[in-house]
């Protein structure tokens, strides 16, 4: 990996079309400005990870798999907070109807 040292306000060029500006350097994060052709997708790496994870999660599981998950979930210590959260959804849905 190429490592370059840059100060705030300085720019890095990639090829002819891509410009990366170090816009602001804070204590634990930097703000980076990116100028790139419109057709080029620019996203934070986490967005790509979440997209891949969503694609892996995009189908409802079969009934036996669901039951296996629930069997492990329900005797657990966290059931109460789940129920209370669920209750608030249901109540809200009723309010609206």
């Amino acid at each position: 990996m190429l490592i370059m040292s840059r100060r705030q306000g300085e720019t890095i060029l990639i090829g002819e079309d891509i410009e990366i500006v170090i816009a602001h350097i804070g204590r634990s994060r930097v703000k980076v400005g990116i100028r790139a052709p419109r057709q080029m997708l620019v996203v934070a790496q986490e967005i790509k990870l979440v997209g891949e994870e969503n694609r892996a999660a995009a189908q409802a599981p079969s009934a036996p798999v669901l039951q296996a998950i629930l069997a492990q979930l329900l005797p657990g210590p966290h059931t109460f907070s789940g129920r209370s959260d669920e209750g608030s959804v249901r109540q809200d849905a009723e309010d609206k109807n």
Partner: protein
Amino acid sequence: MPETETTNFGTISFARESVFEFPHGLPGFEERRKFLPVQNPLTAPILFLQSLDEPSLCFTTLPIWVVDPHYRLHVTEQDLEILGFPADRQPRIGDEVLCLAVLAIRKTGTTANLLAPVVVNLKTYQAVQAVSPETGYSHQHPLFSQEATAC
């Protein structure tokens, strides 16, 4: 009452007011904007998010505090704006927002995406999948400890 065809639940009728609206879709599904929360009493507290645009698209979710009772929500300013909340504080789970962890069920085990919870404004039903890298949460948080995993 409108109806929708679904792969998992057959034909279901629903109230328009109960639809979650994701103005920007979800990462990987940017064009899928409308999801219906579906709950089966037999599988509660699991909540399914059924796409109204794509019959086979259905996410399996759990209220985030079922997965991690100490979960702390961190929604970015942009996402707060989409949800219609002021930028100066985090919304309260259960009171102002519904916060759901999306489950990925694989042969190796079930994981919950704590990096990017689905957050729904309980008044307006506007929703985002709030990617929050600063929190350090994993996108593949194991739902159960290794030895307890059955699937």
